[in-house]
């Protein structure tokens, strides 16, 4: 679980995660936003369904894959959060059309 330093600026953006409102700080990535919001996993694996959370935060491990604005398998740690973004946690195998 992570928290923002008191002087690190306010979370002024609003996004949704699985339909629920979450506050985000401009400049954060999607993965950082999920961690700050206390969301303990961002996907379940296609092989065993095990929960996973961001691991490397630099684009190499692909653990932070989420659905962003309807597009699946996006690397949450590489994508800056934008106001109004709709993020969904990703479950198991990728679905067609996503």
């Amino acid at each position, binding site marked *: *679980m*992570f*928290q*923002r*330093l008191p*002087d*690190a*600026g306010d979370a002024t953006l609003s996004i949704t995660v699985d339909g629920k409102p979450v506050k985000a*700080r401009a*400049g*954060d*990535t999607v993965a*950082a936003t999920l*961690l*700050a919001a206390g969301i*303990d*996993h961002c996907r379940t*694996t296609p*092989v*065993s369904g*095990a*929960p*996973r*959370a*961001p*691991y*490397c*935060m*630099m*684009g*190499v*491990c*692909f*653990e932070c*894959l989420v659905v962003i604005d309807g*597009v699946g*398998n996006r690397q949450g*740690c*590489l994508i*800056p959060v934008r106001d109004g973004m709709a993020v969904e946690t990703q479950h198991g195998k990728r679905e067609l059309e996503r």
Partner: protein
Amino acid sequence: MSGAPELRDSYDVAIIGAGPAGMAAATICAGAGLSTVLFDEQPAPGGQIYRAVGETPVRRPAVLGNDYWYGERLVHALRASAAHHVPGATVWSLSRDREIGVSIDGAARLVQARRVIIATGALERPFPIPSWTLPGVMTAGAAQILLKSSGMIPHGRTVLAGSGPLLWLLAWQYLNAGAKLDAILDTTPRANRKTAWPHAAAFLLSPYFRKGLRLLLSVRRRVRVIADVSDLRAEGDGKLQTIVYRVGDGAETRLPADTLLLHQGVVPNVNLAMSVGIEHRWDEEQLCWTPVVDGFGGTAVDGIAIAGDGAGIAGAWAAEERGKLAALAAVRALKPDARRDLLPDEARVRLALAQVERGRLFLDRLYRPADRFRLPEGDTLVCRCEEVSARQVVETVALGCTGPNQMKSFLRCGMGPCQGRLCGLTVTELIARARGVSPAEVGHYRLRPPVKPITLGELAALPKSEVAIKAVVRG
């Protein structure tokens, strides 16, 4: 300049990765009048070491330390140059004739360059302990990125575990930021001191020595450090709840925890360079693959050089100097009449490089990770993507697999989205041990483009040549 200008179809020099090596190289090439593009996957220049240095929300400079803020100089110089820095750009292919496939904001492009400098840096060495895939377990590097780019620190019970300078640097930065650390589990084997000692004299002259010592003492005064950790695993139902460790031959100790941050050194990020067919050799000191390069980072592939930690781990300051050398070679090849006063002096660069590389062998040997933590056993996952265990990998050797590429077709190990970045070294070393041969003989995964996932839609939308269309259209 950043983002604003339209991407061209061709450049004199294309540089991949905007860490210290890439930023230094781009600034020099552009300064010499070469058209220069700098592709980087991250939203801002800096690489991981100077991550978000222009825009970090961490207000107090003392939290991250002077060595971090030094990166501002490189970012300013880059921004003041005519180099075209393209953030959010994922390079997914590089051909031997230097055509680069890059994806920007969901659209793929092909860009041609006369010279390419690969500056893709390092990534953290895999740390495959039991249940390292549990949410709540992440790398120390990841935690440091959260601090630098988002001003975030862990709350709850936090434990750092592993070995190497970054682990101590993160602990120091966390303490500066007011974070509470429950413990540091130091997995550095005690026997390393003996092999490192003969090289201590060189390290005493390294600029890293005094800084490192001060930092180490400062952390040790304020955090419980448990040395000689010989065994480590994570446990939890759906997320990390307990860390179980053993000191030496002692009994198991259970430590309740919410966050476990792992680190045991960094290794070159070789995927792009290997996919072009650049030769890599097994480095027995650094226990990783290192590309074969000349004194300017040049490779056997015409016009492609590698600079920075991707050419062998030597740290941020060395990366900057190696970026300058690769840039000098590019300028000399493409613009031999460039004004000399616009270029760094080669002799001075080499002197600076020698100074910061001094004592590297001491660090490599002192922090050489234990076999126990590189070569997992039993059900411990090696491949996080495809969930393949150490036992499964070793079993394929009994079936006659001599290397990772045959093993892949049995297990899909290494074929997930990370493309072997988090399992490659572990697999090579496991097979080598099972066969009783050196990792050099076993080899690495055969890497092919695209080296990063790209959608079929993006590929299909690329411009096509007449020849390419004729090759697939009937009649």
